[in-house]
C-alpha cells in the first residue's frame, strides 16, 4: 500500500475547516480568544499542539516553514515539529527568518523584522491573561466582555509595591487594538514592542486550553503599565559572546560549576547571520581568535 495513512499536513479536512473558521473570527476580533475543538496530536500537551494545529490548518505546499523554540532552530521541539511538517506536508523548511513564509514559535519573536507575506504562529500554554488572578472561566469571560481589567493593573501595582518595579518578565500582558487584554504567550517582555504595528499576521494557538487568537498586521499592541512606571523591555547588560550584538535578547549559559557564564543571542539564526557577516564577540570560535592573536603577536 503506497497511499499515505494521513491527510496533507496531518489533520483531516473537517478539523481544518473548523480551525480555519476560528482563525477568521480571531482575526476579525483582535485579541479575543476564540474557542475551538482542539484535537489530540501525536505529541504531548505543552509541546506546541495548539501551534501545530494552527500551522497545519494554514500550511500549503508552497510555504517555507521555520520553527523556533526559545529563539533556537536547533532544539528538540523545533526540530521535531519541523520534521513533522516536512514529512506530513512535504513543505520546504528553513532556519532563515527572512526566507520563511510561516514561522512557528515557542516563546520568542525573531530579532529580524518580519515582513508582510509572513505568518507568525505562537505556541501558547495558558491563553487567559487573567487566569492566575481569577480561576473561573465564567468570570474571566465576563471580565473580557465588560473590558474590566482593573484586576490586572492591581497585579502590576502589587509588583511595584513589593519589588519597586513591575517584576513580570515574561508573558507580560498587552492590550490589543485598545480593547482586549491578551497574553502574548511566555515570550520575554523584551519582545513585546515587536508585536506592535507588526507587518506580519500573528496567530496564537493553545491546544490544551482550546483557544485560538490573533493580532492582524499593523495593529496597535500596548504593554500595560503606569504613567510613573512605564513599560521597559529587559535584557542582560552584555553583548552577545559570539556575535557581539548589543541589542538582541540574550540567553545566559552556565559554562562550568565555578560560576562562569556566557551570554549569547537566543535567536540562533540572527546570531549566525551576524557571525557570517563578520561580527564577532569575546568568545567567538577559533578562526577569528587565531587571527586576532596573530595580528596582536605580529
Amino acid at each position, binding site marked *: 500500500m503506497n497511499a499515505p495513512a494521513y*491527510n*496533507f*499536513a496531518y489533520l483531516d*479536512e*473537517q478539523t*481544518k*475547516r*473548523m480551525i*480555519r*473558521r*476560528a*482563525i*477568521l*473570527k*480571531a*482575526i*476579525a*476580533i*483582535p485579541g*479575543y480568544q*476564540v*474557542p475551538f475543538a482542539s484535537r489530540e496530536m501525536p505529541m504531548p500537551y505543552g509541546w506546541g499542539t495548539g501551534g501545530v494545529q494552527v500551522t497545519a*490548518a*494554514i*500550511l*500549503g*505546499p508552497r510555504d517555507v516553514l521555520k520553527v523556533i523554540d526559545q529563539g533556537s532552530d536547533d532544539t528538540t521541539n523545533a526540530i521535531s515539529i519541523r520534521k513533522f511538517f516536512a514529512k506530513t506536508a512535504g513543505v520546504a523548511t528553513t532556519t532563515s527568518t527572512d526566507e520563511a513564509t510561516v514561522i512557528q514559535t515557542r516563546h520568542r519573536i525573531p530579532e529580524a523584522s518580519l515582513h508582510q507575506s509572513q505568518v507568525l504562529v505562537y505556541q501558547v500554554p495558558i491563553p487567559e491573561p487573567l487566569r492566575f488572578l481569577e480561576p473561573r472561566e465564567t468570570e474571566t*469571560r*465576563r471580565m*473580557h*466582555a*465588560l473590558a474590566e481589567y482593573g484586576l490586572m493593573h492591581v497585579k502590576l501595582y502589587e509588583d511595584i509595591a513589593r519589588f519597586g518595579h513591575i517584576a513580570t518578565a515574561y508573558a507580560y500582558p498587552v492590550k490589543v*487594538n485598545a*480593547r*482586549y487584554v491578551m497574553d502574548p504567550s511566555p515570550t520575554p517582555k523584551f519582545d513585546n514592542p515587536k508585536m506592535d504595528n507588526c*507587518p506580519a*499576521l500573528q496567530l496564537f494557538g493553545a491546544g490544551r486550553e482550546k483557544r485560538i487568537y490573533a*493580532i*492582524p*498586521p*499593523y*495593529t*496597535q499592541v500596548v504593554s500595560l503599565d503606569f504613567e510613573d512606571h512605564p513599560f521597559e523591555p529587559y535584557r542582560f547588560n552584555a553583548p552577545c559572546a559570539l556575535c557581539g550584538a548589543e541589542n538582541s535578547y540574550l540567553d545566559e549559559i552556565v559554562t562550568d560549576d565555578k560560576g562562569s557564564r556566557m551570554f549569547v543571542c537566543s535567536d540562533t539564526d540572527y546570531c549566525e547571520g551576524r557571525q557570517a557577516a563578520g561580527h564577532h564577540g569575546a568568545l567567538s570560535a577559533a578562526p577569528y581568535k587565531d587571527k586576532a592573536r596573530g595580528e596582536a603577536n605580529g
Partner: protein
Amino acid sequence: MTTIAELPPGFVDKVLSAQSTFRSVMDAMARPGAVQRIVPMAGTPETMMRGTAAIALTLFDHDTPLWLDARMAESTDVLKWLKFHTGAPVIHDCSIVAFALISDGVLLPNLERFALGTNEYPDRSTTVILQVESLDSGQNFELRGPGIDGVATLQAAFKPFDLFEQLRFNETLFPRGIDVVLVADDAVVAIPRTTRVMSKGG
C-alpha cells in the same frame, strides 16, 4: 430533476484547493480592502460566482448553519449543490446562522437581523458573503483599522449602495458585529467588524 451526476463538480483536489482558497480569504480578512484572488475553481451552480463557490467548499460543513437570500433559496440547483458538496444545513432563521450567502445585494436583509454574537462570545456571529458587481472599479473608499498600514483604498461597485453606512453599527457594537466578505467573480475583499470605511467619492 437534477441527479447527482449532473451537479456542477466540487474542487478537483479537495485538500490543496481548500487550503489555497482559505489562505486567500485569511489574507483578505487580515488586510481589509486588499483584493485577493481565489485561484482554484469548482463548478458553480446558477447564481453563484466562482469565488463564492470556492469559499463555500472551503468553509462550510455540517457545523455551519447557512442562510440564503431569496434567489438562491429558490434555486434547487444551489440547494442540491450545497447539500451534496458541503452538507451544511440551510435554515430560514437568519439570526442563528454562521454564514449568509447573498447572490445579489438588493436581497440583503437589515444586517441587524443576523447573529451579532454576544459580549461573552462575539465569535458567535454571522459572516456575510456578499456577491458584488466589481472590486476594481466604481466608487472609491478609504479604509482604516487593524490590518491596514495607515489608509487602504478600495474601488468597488456594489449593492446595497449604503452597505458601508449600515456597517457603521459595528463601531458601537464591538466586540459584537458582522464580518463581510465581498466577492466579485474570483476576487475577494473582506471587511471585518474592526474596519472603518469612508466614502471618497469618484
